[in-house]
């Protein structure tokens, strides 16, 4: 899991450099870490011959993070809702939900092989409502 720790540290640097407050930064870093864990564990199945590829970018308007694995693919529609009463006490299945809860946009793209997640967090400049306008139109 060394690669996950590296990804987490890079995400922390990204959020700090973007000037995010502690709570927002925590949510973004947690989501990125969950995506990296999913890629290593569920995507690549802990196979040491498979890699994860991570990109982190501050576009000025948003933080855009991509996490790709080399696994067999993932159908996001088939992930059970962890808030459903029958799933609430399950021991697993909250990673993707947390990612979706903590970020503004989450996109899945099937690679050959693998899955790429693109995570987007809009930056909110002080005194601007640009982020909420973006949210309305997505």
């Amino acid at each position, binding site marked *: *899991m060394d690669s*996950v720790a590296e990804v987490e540290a890079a995400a922390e640097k990204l959020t700090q450099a973007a000037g995010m407050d502690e*709570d927002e930064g*925590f*949510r973004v870093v*947690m989501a990125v*870490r*969950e995506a990296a*864990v999913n890629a290593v*564990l569920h995507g690549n199945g802990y196979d040491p011959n498979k890699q994860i590829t991570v990109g982190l970018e501050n576009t000025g308007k948003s933080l855009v993070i991509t996490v790709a694995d080399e696994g067999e693919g993932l159908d996001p529609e088939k992930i059970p809702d*962890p*808030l459903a009463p029958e799933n*609430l*006490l*399950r*021991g*697993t299945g*909250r*990673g993707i*939900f*947390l990612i979706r*809860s*903590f970020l503004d946009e989450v996109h899945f793209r099937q690679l050959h092989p693998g899955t790429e997640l693109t995570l987007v967090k809009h930056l909110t400049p002080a005194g601007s409502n640009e982020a909420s306008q973006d949210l309305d139109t997505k």
Partner: protein
Amino acid sequence: MALSISTRQLDGVTILDLSGRITLGEGSVQLRDAIRDLISKGEKHILLSLGDVSYIDSSGLGELVSAFTTAKNQNADVKLLNLTKKVKDVLQVTKLYTVFDIYDDEAHAISSFK
């Protein structure tokens, strides 16, 4: 920082003071082993003090849920004490805040087991 766990007894309640991160791998396994050990010894009243837990991930949440359900199956109770803002945030988003008995005051938490 890895997870550290220290155990103490007070008025028939076993209190686990957790410090560090409850995450996939070491932290989650340590917590699982500690809870299972207590339940196998017949402990019925277990209080997890999380005031020094800086971080919990989805795997750590899963361990808390597993601890809760394992305890219930053995007619024991696992309750939570002193959540940090970050841990509370994650429990609220996942609705697990509604599952656990959660306390801010240790004496109140201990008396709740009686």
